[in-house]
Structure formats: structure tokens, C-alpha cells
């Protein structure tokens, strides 16, 4: 069951993938030929090998891969939380990696939102909802006066389908998993980010809550047509309703990329075919 690592090697596409021919100016975040390995020389484990990834304005990229495919490492690298061994990451044309790029990294942080798998983990248990959601508004240039912050928190909560009156003052322990995840999404989008990254946002929730989170993402994208989004998941079925493009990662190598409908209709790698099979009802 733990597929042997090199079996699919012959199928790997060249890393110059076609993303549907979008103009360069619409690229928000781009990683080119990213490699990363862990461990010392003797037992070195290559987690990512020459991966290309591109998040575009107004589009949602579905990053698909099983456990151990390196998708979380890739996310940490493109967000500047970890540095790659090889390759380059650009946010709006600015290079991120390296010590001299703190400015670019800070700009990326100001303009990106994160949603994690564990809905309660991304909220401080000692903070009421309004404070968690307001936190990104209290830094840097985004800082504003109190009434403006409150208004934007209320807007953000409303946009994820939570009544601000009812939920502003609640604490994470008083929320269900689905509600907590929606608060986390409100928090991630409150400062109007250019990029939203969601790492397995639904796998800790039950199906009914999952469906509601899908709707939440859909309405967030309707509210903010400029938003670039990366949705990480191990389940094709979950991402297909929102993702415009797909990137299938397996053992740190890109198996397939392209427009979601094309990939689903005519998968070219055997791994993608197995994913599609597993996700069919």
C-alpha cells in the first residue's frame, strides 16, 4: 500500500506545466523548481523535487496529494515559513527566499491568510472570537481605529455565514468544529488578503460541516473576485467543486497539473486515475 517511491517516475511530467495560459501579471505567488530534503547525508529523504507551483489572481489552485506527498512542506516553503534547498519563490515578482528578503516576506505575510486542518488549533483558546478575527487588522499598515476594526470583523463573520451579534463574544470552546473553522476562515480573510491558503480545512470535520465549509469558500470567492487561493487536500472529491486548477503531488513530484476539468476528464498519470477512482461515489 505504501507505493514504492520510483514506480511512477516514468510518468512524471516535465516541470514546465501549462496553467491555462494566464498572463504573468496575474500570478500572485509562484514557486519555481522547488526542492527540499530532510535528514543528514546518510539518511537523506527528498521531500520535494523540482516542484513548480503558481497561484493566480481570482483562481483557486487545488493541491492534491496523499500523506507524505510533501504538500504541507510545499505550503510552508511558498509562504516563507521554511526555506527550500533549491528553487525560488516569488510573491508578486519579488523573490522570497534568503536572508535579504525580509521585506518581501513581510509583505507576503500581510497579504496572505492561512486556514489549518484542526479548526480549534488555529484559534487561541483564551481569546473571544472577535479578538481572534481582529488580530490581523492590528498590525502594520492595516491598523485602523476601533470602530473600523469592529466593522470589518462583523463583515468578515457575516461573510462566512456567522451572525456577528451571536458569535463575536464566544470562545473557541463554545464553537462546534465547523463553526470554529468558519471563524478561522473569517480571520484569514479579514484583512483582504491577496492569497488564501487552506491546508486540509475539511478533513477534521464531518460531511455536513464539510459541505458548509465548501459553501463558505464559494461565497468568500464570490465576495473577493481578486483573491488567489490554494486549497490543499488529499481528496479530489472535496476540491473539485471550488478548484479551477489542479496540481497533483505524489512523493514530492508533480504528477499532473492543469485546469481542473481537464485533469478530471482526462487524467494522464496513473496516480491521478487512482485518486479519481477513490473519490467516486
Amino acid at each position, binding site marked *: 500500500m505504501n507505493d514504492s517511491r520510483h514506480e511512477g517516475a516514468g510518468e512524471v511530467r516535465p516541470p514546465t506545466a501549462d496553467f491555462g495560459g494566464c498572463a504573468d501579471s496575474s500570478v500572485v505567488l509562484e514557486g519555481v523548481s522547488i526542492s527540499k530534503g530532510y535528514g543528514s547525508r546518510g539518511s537523506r529523504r527528498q521531500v520535494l523535487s523540482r516542484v513548480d507551483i503558481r497561484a493566480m489572481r481570482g483562481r483557486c489552485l487545488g493541491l492534491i496529494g496523499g500523506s507524505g506527498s510533501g504538500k504541507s512542506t510545499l505550503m510552508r516553503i511558498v509562504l516563507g515559513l521554511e526555506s527550500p534547498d533549491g528553487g525560488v519563490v516569488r510573491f508578486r515578482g519579488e523573490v522570497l527566499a534568503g536572508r535579504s528578503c525580509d521585506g518581501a516576506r513581510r509583505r507576503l505575510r500581510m497579504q496572505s491568510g492561512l486556514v489549518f486542518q484542526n479548526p480549534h488549533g488555529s484559534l487561541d483558546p483564551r481569546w473571544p472570537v472577535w479578538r481572534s478575527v481582529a488580530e490581523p487588522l492590528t498590525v502594520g499598515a492595516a491598523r485602523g481605529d476601533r470602530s473600523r476594526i469592529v466593522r470589518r470583523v462583523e463583515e468578515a463573520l457575516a461573510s462566512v455565514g456567522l451572525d456577528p451579534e451571536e458569535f463575536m*463574544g464566544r470562545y473557541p470552546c463554545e464553537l462546534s468544529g465547523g463553526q470554529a473553522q468558519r471563524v478561522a476562515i473569517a480571520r484569514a480573510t479579514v484583512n483582504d488578503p491577496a492569497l488564501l491558503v487552506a491546508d486540509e480545512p475539511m478533513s477534521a470535520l464531518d460531511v455536513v460541516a464539510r459541505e458548509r465549509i465548501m459553501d463558505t469558500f464559494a461565497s468568500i470567492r464570490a465576495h473577493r473576485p481578486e483573491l488567489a487561493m490554494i486549497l490543499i487536500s488529499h481528496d479530489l472529491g472535496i476540491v473539485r467543486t471550488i478548484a479551477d486548477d489542479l496540481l497533483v503531488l505524489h512523493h514530492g513530484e508533480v504528477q499532473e497539473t492543469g485546469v481542473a476539468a481537464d485533469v478530471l476528464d482526462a487524467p494522464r498519470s496513473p496516480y491521478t486515475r487512482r485518486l479519481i477512482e477513490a473519490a467516486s461515489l
Partner: protein
Amino acid sequence: MMDGVMIVLRSVWRRAEGRFSLTVLCLWVAVSVVSLFWTPQPITNTDGYHVWASGSLRHPLGTDGAGADVLSWLMAGSYVDLLIVVATVAFSAILGVALVSAMVARSVMLSSVSVVVVDALISIPTVVLALIVAVPLGASIAVVIVACSIGYGLNLARVARPQALLAARSEYVVSAAASGVTGLRILATHILPAIVPTMAVQLSLSAGTSILAESGLTYLGIGVPSGVPSWGHSLSTSASFVNVYPFAALWPGLVITVVVTALNVFGDMLRDAVDPVVNPRLRRDRTRAGRRS
């Protein structure tokens, strides 16, 4: 802020143990304030004809070996012990928080060095620390405060570190960092609040232990100097005669026991009361505060 303090105290008061500890602690503060202006007998008054006397109208708790009034000495001593406890708690809190902050720092250098330093220093017993401090300072209140603050501050840092690390590595800290919140602000708003409940317990234990340490160090002759009233002083003067006058040691022993117990119970109550995850009343208050803003 004031609202929060009132709610915390009210939550403590709601439980019987909490009422006991709050009553004892308030009484303690009140007595120390009164003792600054008035004691039943001036503490310098000695009555050579009535040494080791048992309770009487003139000396409700009897007299000690010098014929001084035990009640007056205990009242006067409560002020010195309050001073020691407050100073120890304040200084060990400052030291502990500073060390915890260093130990969870993102800089590998700072965190690993501070962990090693804390582990090395914590192996020195408080008594030895006090003996070292007593060399330049002589027998004084400062010896007790300095030795206890260092010892308990180190202990606090070690006990609180896991909690702080848990918060520091949590996803809410990652998302705060990812939205551009600076390290120091994350420390102040996410990490340090997470160790407040632990601090409440540890500091109240330290408060109790510092009273015991004062007694012990005074007994050894390096704590509160002779002539200055303190509970430890009262205890050590009477403890050597406990075989002859068993009741003489009873009163200072009893006072110390009750106050130390109250401090420990108070710490336990406080831990539950200051944590909004555990205390729903606090949540309701912050809710209202949120609405107002």
C-alpha cells in the same frame, strides 16, 4: 481590567475553600496595616518577671522567653512576612517570565542557552543560595527575598516552559505570525497568557514557601536579623524550648500553617478563576467588553 479582577475574586469567593483563603489573606493584610500603628503592647516591652507565661488578659497569647507579648510580636511580624511574600512573588514572577520568554525564543541560541542555564542554576538549593547571598548582605530581609526570588523564579520558568512551548508551537501562533504579528507581540498576547494559570499556582506555592523559608533561614541566623519581628523569628525563639514550653511554639506555628495553607488554596482557586477556558463567568465578561468596543 478592574471588572476582570472583580470577576476573578468573585469566582474564588463562590467556593468554600476560596472564601477561607480570601478571608485569611484579607485578615493578614489588615493586621499588618494595623500593626504599623498599634500593637497591644509595644514590641520592645519585656517583662522579666513573666517569661514563658501562658495566656492572660494582659498577654492573650502569653509571653516569650524575654517576657515580650507574643500577640504583639506576631502582629508586627505579619507586616515583615507580607513584605517578604509580596516582594518574592513580584521578583520571581519577573524573573520567571523573563526566563520563559528566553526559553521559548525563536532564536535557537537564546533558547538553548537559557534552558541550560536554568537547569544548571536550579540544581543549587535555595538554602545554599541564601548562604551565598548572606555573605555580602549579612542577616537581613533582603537575603530571604533575593534567595527566594531566584530559586522560585527558576522553578517557575521550568514548570511553565512546557505550557509556553505548547502555545508557541500552536497553529494560532503560526497564523498570527503569518499575518505579520511581531514576535514580541505574539509573546505578550498569546504565549504569556497561556502560562498565567500555571503562574497562579506556582507563585502561590512560592508565596507559602517563602514564609517557610523565612522561618528556616531566620532559624539558621541568616534571615531576618534579631530584634526585627517576624513569624520565623517568633517560631525560632520558641522552638528551641518546645520540650519545656510546648504551647509557646504553638501560636507562631499555627499562624504560619494557616497562612501558608490559605496561600496554596488561593493559588489553586486562582488557576481556575483566571482561565477563560475553565471559567465561564470570565467569558461572559469579555463578551460584554467586546460588545462595548
